[in-house]
Each structure stands twice: as structure tokens, then as C-alpha cells.
């Protein structure tokens, strides 16, 4: 079975700055792939290229084997997306927003919607202008999780969520991968990612620094002479950035 996401030597220039400078990223079907890197390293740029919102300047990006820029509408039927900074329409309630976003994908299953609303404890009758950051994230999360997408793209989806809802999100992620869906999850919460993801890509200055399973990343670190006892994902991440 071919990869869901296949990126090779991806370059994106904004004027004279190179936001992406030869990035590689492969995500296989059914994987939860952790996408890690500091602010400004190019994670969101990569995701926006995958969503066909911006056009690559060089290299190739393939989504389900197709061109994300040229085939955006068709490909979007198969994915759901949650940005890290959700901005909503101030006069619409959370419930209206979830329904409207769901309608773009042909409607949500009302049972699944209700179940998610209960688990995330979202007040659907509040206008978006009255929501806190965390509650705005919940709106986008519920709208995405209530769909039956093959691929979920999460760009720091839990920023602003409290630890209880963070745990709810983790449960939801486990449930959907249990059903064979694929997830690309960009996050700064490395402890969370270490438990959730099967494979990782660490990005540095618009380029892939390391990629593979946790064991693979550990082997590389050990062969570079690191102490094998204290090698959490966080240690590995910090090690790559201290070089």
C-alpha cells in the first residue's frame, strides 16, 4: 500500500527566506506520525502545502499519491484539519460553526457529534466571540473528529486545552487510529507525542533532521555516544537541537 503523505526535497520560499529547504516526510497508512520542531521551523508551512493552501516552490509533495495543490477539493474529501490557532466567526455559536463546517463535508453524524460535545464539555450555545482559546480549539476538534476522514492533520491542536480535555483528545486519537485512520500530529507536547505516535519526523530549519520510530531515533543517539538509559523523546529532541 502506498504512503498517505509523501514529501521529498520540499522547498518553500517567501521572498528571500526559505521556510522549507529540502524537507522529506513519509507517513504510511494507519500511522500516527509525530511532527516535531520549534516555532518557525516550517511545520505549519509543510501542512499548508499539504492542504493546497500554498504552493510549493520546489520538490514534491503527494497526498494519497496526488498533487495537493491541483487536486485540493477532491483530496479534502478524504481529510480533516485542525489548526493550532482557531479563529471563528464571532456571531455564530459553537454549535452553528460545527454544523456549518460539517456540512462542507456532507454533514456530521449527530450521534458522534453529541458524544464528542459531551466528552469535551463544550457549551454549544455560546457565540464564538465569548469563547476562550481552548473552547475555540474544541469547536474545530469536534468538527474534525466527528467526520469519517481517512487522514487527520492536526497542527498543535490542543494548544489552550486544559489537561482533562488534553486527555480526552488523546483518547479520541487512539480510537480513530484503532479504526485504521492515519494521523499527522504536529505538537510541542513531547510527553504526549511519545505515547501516542508510532513514528516521528524532527524538523530543523526547514529540513528533516531525523525520522523514524522511537527505537530508531534511540539507536542513532546511542551510536553517537549518548547514554541509552535516559532517552525520552524530549531528550532526543533536545540532543538534536544542541548539536
Amino acid at each position, binding site marked *: 500500500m502506498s504512503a498517505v503523505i509523501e514529501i521529498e526535497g520540499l522547498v518553500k520560499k517567501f521572498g528571500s527566506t526559505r521556510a522549507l529547504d529540502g524537507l522529506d516526510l513519509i507517513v504510511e497508512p494507519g500511522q500516527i506520525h509525530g511532527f516535531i520542531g520549534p516555532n518557525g521551523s516550517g511545520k505549519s508551512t509543510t501542512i499548508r502545502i499539504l*492542504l493546497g*493552501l500554498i*504552493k510549493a516552490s520546489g520538490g514534491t509533495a503527494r497526498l494519497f499519491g496526488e498533487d495537493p495543490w491541483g487536486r485540493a477539493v477532491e483530496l479534502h474529501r478524504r481529510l480533516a*484539519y485542525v*489548526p493550532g490557532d482557531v479563529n471563528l466567526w464571532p456571531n455564530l455559536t459553537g454549535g*452553528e460553526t460545527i454544523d*456549518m*463546517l460539517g456540512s462542507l463535508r456532507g*454533514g456530521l453524524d449527530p450521534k458522534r457529534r453529541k458524544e464528542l460535545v459531551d466528552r469535551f464539555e463544550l457549551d454549544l450555545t455560546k457565540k464564538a466571540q465569548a469563547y476562550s482559546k481552548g473552547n475555540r480549539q474544541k469547536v474545530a476538534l469536534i468538527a474534525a473528529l466527528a467526520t469519517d476522514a481517512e487522514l487527520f*492533520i492536526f497542527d498543535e491542536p490542543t494548544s489552550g486545552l486544559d489537561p482533562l480535555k488534553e486527555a480526552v483528545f488523546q483518547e479520541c486519537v487512539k480510537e480513530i487510529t484503532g479504526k485504521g485512520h492515519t494521523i499527522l500530529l504536529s505538537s510541542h507536547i513531547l510527553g504526549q507525542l511519545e505515547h501516542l505516535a508510532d513514528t516521528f519526523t524532527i524538523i530543523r530549519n526547514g529540513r528533516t533532521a531525523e525520522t523514524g520510530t522511537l527505537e530508531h531515533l534511540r539507536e542513532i543517539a546511542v551510536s553517537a555516544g549518548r547514554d541509552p538509559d535516559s532517552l525520552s523523546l524530549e531528550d532526543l529532541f533536545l540532543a538534536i537541537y544542541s548539536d
Partner: protein
Amino acid sequence: MSGFAGTREAFLFALKRDRLILPVCLVGLIGWMAMYVVSYAGLYGTQAELNALYESVAGNPAMVAMSGPTGGLRSLGGAIAWDSMPALTIISGVFAMFSVIRHSRAEEEDGRTDLLLASGSGRLAPLTAALLITALALTLAAVGYFAVLAIGGYAIGPSILFSLAVLSFGLVIAGTTAVFAQVTGKARAARGLVGVVIGVSWLLRAVGDTGGGTLTWFSPLGWAQQMKPFWENLWWPLLLPTAATAFTVSLAFWLLARRDIGSGLIQPRPGPPNASNSILHPLGFSFRLQRSTMLGWTAMLFVYGFAIGVVGENIEDILKSSSAFTEAFASASSDLLDSYFASILTVIAILGAGFTISSVLRPHSEESRDRAALLLAAPLGKVRWVAGHVLIAYVASAFMIALTGLALGVGLGVATGDFSQTGTLFAAGFAQVPAMWLTGSLALFLFGVSSRLSSVAWGLLAAFILIWTLASFGNLPGWLIDLSPFSHVPAVPAVSLDMAPLLVMTALALAFTVAGLALWRRRDLV
């Protein structure tokens, strides 16, 4: 007092933010006043022409309702004051409203006030700075009006009184805005409420002036006009706006000192937990986003058209009283009223093109507020999404201007009892549509080129307004006049309908629309 700590810094910062927009507004306001002074001297050069104007206007209830008491029209200064004050006061009020909100509630809504207050600023500092910069701008504008009148050779005392009258209304609105900025948590809602206050003061003055006069004294606009510069020259009514400003500003500070930062006194009401079917498809959702703006514009243009229609019957006499005006409106047809209506319809169409632009550029504001990605990551095509907004913009623009034509006709019918013109004026409204579409399509084209270029569309509209105004007053070179689409609208109902320019403009609008969409399709989302 510690509440005011940091006011100086906040004021200087506001000044820095407004370093471009403020001079532009001042030049606009003072330039407008100068235009009145220059054009009136040209149009009513002789006392005989002035007397004829007075004869046709004096005591005419419709004219009194539109522009206030007419007693001052025997002198040129009085005529200028009478004609310019309604527009100048209302525009100053709108400016004061935007300026106060921009530096107080809008900042707070975006969360920037928190930063300021957390870094040692007093909680009263932002509002104080907002009021100071607004008062400064209004005062500079008033000095400008005075200078224009003084240079024009008008008496010093009445010129000062006139400038103070306009200033006083601006300050009352600044104070009122400051109060509403505490009451509601939303900049948009606060602006809407102040808009209602301005509208109601116009209505109270209009009804009061035509009736017993009592209601006029409940209207800040009435106070300004009751000073009657260049005529009775009353200074004591200045006490009323001064007291109102002091009261509203104190009330605003009192409320500010007692409320939570980041919210208003009124909390937003809850809404439905489920979406109605009307927003469950992309076009319906776009329509919902544009609905309130559309309703506001439609109501405004309709009322304006109706009011103009009601006054219309008497306009003919006024126009005939000035030989220069008769020349200005003398076209192929001899019917002055029809020419007048044609030009009024074009003026309304240029204003209405403001709606067309804002409506076409709705995707731009969605894009710059980071909401577009949420929609476009769904299976919704880029072109389909923007084309939906553009469709709404074009249909609504056509609907609005046709309705304004209808309102003109109905207003005229109500005043004269003769509704035979209603159909003609309704049809005449449609002649304006291609020029509005062309303006909108230029905005779309700019949006297609890049997100940052989008706001240049407003500059285009300003240029069209300027060309229109200057073309009717002075001698602009023909090629410059031709640059504005609104110069090519046939003056129906005064002349027979010439379809050629309308078809050309529609074709151009279509071309720019297609090009704009094609460019948008190819560019990155910001």
C-alpha cells in the same frame, strides 16, 4: 491619579498609529469645507441669485427637514453654513466614532489593552488617549474651517461660531461613543449604537425643525444648527453640547472604573446549539456573513433615496434660482428635476459602491483573520468560495440601487401625490449597476493579485468620489474624468437610455472578475 498613568505614552502611540490617516481625514474635511466656500461664491455671486435661493427654500418644510432652519439664506455666509453644516457635522461625528472606538474598544477586543495595562499603564489611560487624539483632530479640523471662512473674507465672529458648532457635535459623539464602548464588548456593536444615536439626532432635528421646535432641543445636531452662525449668531447653545460632552465623558470614565477589562457591561446572549439549514451550504453561509452589512446599507440607501424624493419636488425651484446651477444641470433634456435625480442616483451609486467593495472583499477579511483556511481545508474550491461572495456582492448591489431608485420615486409620489415617475426612477436605478460592478470587479482583481493590495480598492473609490465632486464643480481634464466608471453612466431619466457604455462596463466588469478569480486561484493563501 494612578488610573491615568501612562496616558502620555498611550496618546503618543495613538498619534504614531494615526500619522497617516489623521492628516488624510483633516485634509478631506477642511477641503470639503473649502469646496463649499468656493462653489457658493461661484454659484450665488449676486444678491439677486441669493434672494431667489432664499425665496425658493425659506420655510419649505422638506428643505427644513433635510438641512435645518433656512433663515440665514439671505447672506452668502448663512447659505454656506446652512448647506454645509448637516454633512460636516455628521461626517465629524462618524469620524469621532471611528477614532474613539479604534483606540479604545477595538484595542481591548483584540487583547492589546491587557498588555498595556499589565505593563504599568493605568486602566483609564487608553480611553483618555483615545478621547484626546479625537478631540485634537476635531479641533484642528475646526481651526481649518475657520481659516477657510476667514480667508474667504467672512466675518471672524460668525466664522468662529460656525467652527465651534461643528466641533461641538463631534465632541458630543466622541463622549457618547466612549460610553457605548464601555457598555458593549464589541467594537462593531458600539459603532452600530453610535450610528443609531446620530440617525436619531438627525430625525429629532428634522421633525423638530418642521414642527413646534421642541424636539430639536433634544438633538445634538439641533444644538449645533440652533447657533445660527452668520444669521442670529447665538453663542449660548454652546452650553448644551459642552454639558453633554462633560456628562458623557464622566459617565464613560465612571463605567470604565467599575467594569472588567475585556468585556462590556452587556454580555453577548447565547444562540442556537444547532445551525439552521440556511447556512449549511457555502453560498448560504456567505450570505449569512454578509447579511447584517447588507441590511444596514439597504436601509440607509432606501431612507436617503426616500428623503431625497420627498424633497425633490421643491428642488426644481431652487435649481432655477441659480443661473450657474441651471448651467451645471443643463443637459440634452430641459427637465431639471430629471437631471437632478440622475445625478443623485449616481452619487448614491458611488456611495453604494462602498458596499460593493466591502462585500467583494469579504474573502479578504476572512483571509486576513485566519478563518479562510478552516473553510478551504474542507472540500470547498477556492474559486467557488470567492465567486459566491462576489455573486452576493453583485446581486445585492443591483438590488440596492434599484431599490433606491424606487424609494426616490415613492418619495416623490408621496410629496406630490403623483406616482407616474416611480417606474421610471426604479428603472433608472439599474443604469448605475454596471459602474458599481466594475468598481467591485477592480477590487476583486486587486485581491487576486495579492492580499495586501486589496485595500487599494478603497483608494480607487476615493478617487472616483473626488473625480465626481470636482467634475461637477470645476474644470477637470476630460481624460481624468473618463477614468471613473461613474462618469460614463447615462443621465437617465433626463436623457434617453444609451446602452453602449453600460454594455462596455458590464463586459469590463466580467473580464476583471474572471481575471481576479484566475489570479486568486493561482496565489498562496496568506
